[in-house]
């Protein structure tokens, strides 16, 4: 049995990022709190098996994503895959770059184009597998190798989920931009290739 004070001292610094990820995974505060609490209780009970000196943050995220996957499987909340066959690489970039103004950074342009809420919504709309990969890579800054260990999948699978997740995300963002009249280019369905 792990000493509570030691466990809390070691793991509490990661509670904020675990909660943030849990919120994006579950979509609401009550479920996010449940998920983080479950993660901490499981981690506490298994803390004796954690090898000190290895990656504690990655270990906690592994417990979190496993707990989420178990819940998700039983609830079957979202479709697992989505048809992205026709979405091209750099989708959003190709759509919006022609509207760029000289001398403005890509970052400024993106912030003008999308509200915070729209970016979050586009991430939350992603199918589970892609969303987890995007959150771990883009928000938490885990390396491909760490994500592969957290999700227990090969690095090639991490890369393909990220790739597909980003394509899907860019497509959603573009739709938001169109809906708000910010992107003055045809909808994908209107483009003949």
């Amino acid at each position, binding site marked *: *049995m792990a000493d509570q004070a030691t466990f809390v001292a070691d793991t509490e610094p990661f509670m904020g990022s675990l909660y943030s990820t849990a919120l994006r995974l579950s979509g609401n505060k009550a479920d996010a709190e449940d998920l983080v609490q479950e993660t901490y209780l499981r981690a506490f009970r298994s803390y004796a098996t954690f090898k000190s000196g290895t990656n504690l943050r990655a270990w906690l995220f592994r417990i979190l994503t496993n707990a989420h996957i178990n819940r998700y499987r039983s609830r079957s909340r979202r479709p697992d895959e989505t048809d992205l066959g026709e979405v091209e690489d750099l989708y959003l970039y190709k759509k919006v770059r022609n509207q760029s103004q000289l001398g403005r950074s890509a970052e400024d342009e993106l912030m003008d184009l999308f509200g915070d809420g729209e970016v979050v919504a586009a991430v939350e709309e992603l199918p589970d597998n892609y969303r987890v990969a995007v959150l771990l890579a883009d928000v938490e800054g885990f390396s491909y190798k760490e994500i592969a260990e957290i999700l227990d999948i090969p690095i090639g699978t991490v890369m393909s989920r990220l790739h597909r997740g980003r394509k899907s995300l860019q497509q959603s963002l573009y739709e938001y931009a169109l809906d708000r009249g910010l992107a003055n280019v045809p909808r994908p369905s209107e483009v003949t290739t």
Partner: protein
Amino acid sequence: MNDELGCGGDVDCQKALDDLYAYVDGWSEGTERTSIEDHLAACAPCVDAYDFQASLKKLISSTCRSVLPDDVRSRILEAIANCDGEPSTDTPVDA
């Protein structure tokens, strides 16, 4: 070959773009970092594409963070304090 980005049809552009995500993510193992860097040094349209991807990654990172409310933190710490710490009968954590 591929002139979608206005690179002038440089065959290296497709290769560079294929590796772009890995480069944006800072993953060098298995990707030819120097060849991408050489290509970016010589190809302004690909630099634009890189900047865009890197900026989008930053935007996702900054917008998708939420602050842990104090009451949630307190409740979770309380749950740990009330936990006997004995290994549960749940599926063991195999990490």
